[in-house]
């Protein structure tokens, strides 16, 4: 590709990036986060949790076939999906909170794309060496050494990718059973397909796509830009301190004031996994991973200049520092009205979910009145309404429910196809039962338009009872 050609180019090949090894506070933090998060991802499906006989003993399980979600002592049924919705809303507000306070901290530290790319680069470095060795290998013609190293690298990547896809499927069924089925080739094709797809995406995204996912594919960087303000702390280059940049000649000090602190050593550029130059200012491709800070601090230490030429900085501080004022404390940036509101919202939803979790009963009833027709007149002149009642028994023993109508002696409850008012529901099951409410002839309920009624379902051991509200349609005379 020529750069001086006047005809516009239709496409640009990706410029490969070979991030150099770096050490420092942020790199150490990122290694720890990587270890913890990958550990959680791989270990979680193998944690056991005793729920009694007939129940899965996997601590975290998304049981799609039986439509249950297990999380340690919590069991979520499909009708309780609002818990999941609540968690997703919390995750969303949590992202708002962190983005408005700390910028793209999710992208730089916690995003799976970043974590897996970090892991893949680590493998790359183990096998091929650091930046210069990798560059040399990349440019040299294919030979035995290059084939061996690239082959080995791709093999290790592929193994990591298989393990990634492999761990994912364990969340959806009993992990030990599935592992046994997987290695004996008797697992369901869906399991193999899922592993294959996730292996492919992990291998491609972590090994080859890398920063392009963030730059071209991910919507999150675009949204985040709208969530940051002048108090948001992001990675910035103190250009007023660094410029004019210039090489430092050995044993020869530059004239006072003619040169800034930046010695143009390119350390910040060489370590950047996104392949950008932070000295160009805030840019879309920056994921604020902090590695350039580590690299620059290391250089500043060596040339005896104060650290922080590149550092976490709020936009408002940039203005203050330029004017020679002291920056505001980072805590003041973080604890401002906007982040407080996010925190309160986030915590409020969290508290509501926990309260809801402890208040919920292990039985549940929903009532659907049958409206075709709304009522039926019986031979003795009484008026009957029909309802489809759904009773859920989220308990591991069968339960008998006694169904009654509250506070209306003129309305009688009967059950379709059976005498009495008792309904039995199997353990961990739900039952659809047609019931009838009959109002005797001439009573207000039979003659009126609509009468509100409460239907109570009491477990016959007397432990729990619940009610549902509905209406009784009369003849409307």
């Amino acid at each position, binding site marked *: *590709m020529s*750069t*001086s*050609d*006047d005809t*516009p*180019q*239709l*496409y*640009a*090949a*990706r*410029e*490969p990036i*070979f991030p150099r090894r770096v050490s420092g506070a942020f790199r150490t933090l990122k290694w720890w986060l990587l270890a913890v998060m990958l550990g959680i991802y791989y270990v979680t499906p193998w944690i056991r949790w005793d729920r009694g006989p007939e129940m899965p003993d996997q601590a975290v399980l998304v049981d799609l076939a039986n439509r249950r979600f297990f999380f340690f002592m919590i069991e979520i049924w499909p009708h309780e999906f609002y818990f999941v919705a609540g968690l997703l809303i919390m995750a969303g507000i949590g992202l708002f909170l962190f983005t408005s306070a700390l910028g793209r901290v999710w992208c730089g530290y916690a995003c799976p794309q970043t974590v897996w790319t970090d892991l893949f680069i680590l493998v790359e470095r183990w096998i091929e060496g650091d930046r210069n060795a990798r*560059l040399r290998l*990349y*440019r040299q013609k294919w030979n035995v050494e290059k084939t061996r190293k690239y082959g080995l690298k791709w093999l290790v990547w592929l193994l990591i990718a298989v393990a990634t896809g492999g761990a994912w499927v364990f969340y959806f069924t009993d992990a030990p059973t599935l592992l046994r089925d997987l290695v004996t080739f008797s697992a369901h094709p869906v399991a193999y397909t899922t592993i294959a797809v996730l292996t492919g995406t992990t291998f491609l995204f972590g090994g080859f*796509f890398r920063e*392009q996912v963030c730059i*071209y594919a991910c919507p999150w960087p675009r949204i985040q830009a709208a969530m940051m303000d002048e108090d948001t702390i992001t990675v910035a280059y103190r250009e007023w301190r660094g*410029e*004019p*940049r*210039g*090489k430092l000649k050995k044993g020869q000090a530059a004239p006072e004031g003619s040169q800034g602190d930046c010695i*143009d050593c*390119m350390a910040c*550029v060489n370590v950047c996994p996104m*392949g950008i*130059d932070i000295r*160009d200012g805030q840019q879309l491709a920056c994921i604020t991973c902090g590695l350039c800070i580590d690299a620059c601090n290391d250089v500043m230490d060596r040339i005896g200049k104060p650290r922080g030429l590149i550092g976490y900085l709020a936009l408002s501080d940039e203005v203050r520092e330029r004017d020679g004022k002291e920056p505001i404390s980072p805590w003041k940036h973080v604890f401002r009205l906007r982040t407080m509101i996010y925190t309160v919202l986030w915590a409020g939803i969290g508290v509501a979910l926990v309260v809801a979790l402890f208040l919920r009963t292990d039985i549940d009833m929903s009532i659907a009145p*049958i409206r*075709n*027709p709304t009522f*039926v*007149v*019986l*031979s*003795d*002149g009484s008026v*009957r309404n*029909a309802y489809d009642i759904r009773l859920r028994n989220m308990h591991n023993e069968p339960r008998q429910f006694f169904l009654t109508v509250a506070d209306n002696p003129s309305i009688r409850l009967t059950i*379709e*196809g059976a005498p009495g008012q008792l309904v039995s529901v199997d353990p961990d099951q739900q039952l659809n039962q*047609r019931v*009838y409410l009959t109002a005797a*002839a001439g009573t207000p309920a039979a003659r009126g338009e609509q009468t509100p009624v409460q239907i109570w379902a009491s477990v016959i051991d007397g432990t729990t009872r619940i009610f549902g509200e509905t209406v009784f349609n009369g003849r409307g005379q």
Partner: protein
Amino acid sequence: MVDPTKKTPENKVRPPERQYPDPKAKLKQEPPTTGHSWDGIEEYDNPMPRWWLWLFYLTIIWALIYMIFYPAWPLVTRATSGILGYSTRAEVAEDIDRFNERNEVWFDRLVEADLAEINDDRDLQSFAVNAGAAVFRAQCSQCHGTGGAGVQASGFPNLLDDEWIWGGGIEDIHQTVRYGIRNEDYPDARWSEMPAFGRDEILNDEQIDQVVHYVLQLSGQEADGELAEAGEGIYMDNCASCHGDNGDGDTFVGAPPLNTAVWLYGGSYEDIRETVVNARFGIMPGFDGRLRDAEIRAVAAYVHQLGGGQ
């Protein structure tokens, strides 16, 4: 702002062999813009990534392959069929066949089962009710309504209440569905006959007036006591043989009860008088031979559990 005339198309973001930029140039050279400007915001004219271009070519190749294998080009009456001969209709037909095959086992069980025992087998009853509901919607709902409530006071019986003209046991319902009511197609069809007391001049106007008042009284409605008293004798002579001494009706001959709140053709003075004068009957087709045995049994089970089954 960027002046496009002064820029060279510097599109290379960063080559592997880095040329260190001129330390005096504070900003890197910017790529050209498209020339569009919105409120002073301009758009860079960066080239697209190469992998994106590959994906674009791939979609074209995919489209070509798709056209060869799958229906694609619309013609006058139908589309090109593609060499796989795939069609969504054929797929649906296959699905239906597969479900039918699976249901066959249940249909067999339904035919073999004793009608009265269907309700004892929860699984079989559940299948019968669901299959019967489908048959009911297709074959019965035109007259009896999708909810089974019939058309009130217009001769289409309500199947939800507890009153039956021909009996509400599952055997009775099955018999009615199989052969129908008052139709000539089946010798086993149920047949009721009420004389047209007025039209055929069996009773005169005064007698009809009296007997209608008696029936109003029987059903607990407001009636002229004197007329009703006079009508009692007429009722006993002309009506009681089918409708019973107390107006209880008789499901054996299809005579509805007259002492209840349920009326097939309405229970007002005018409605009853019209029935007595001209006689009114319903007619229902039989389904023997039109539906499979199992379907007839299923719809009987369905109707039986609608709320009025006995």
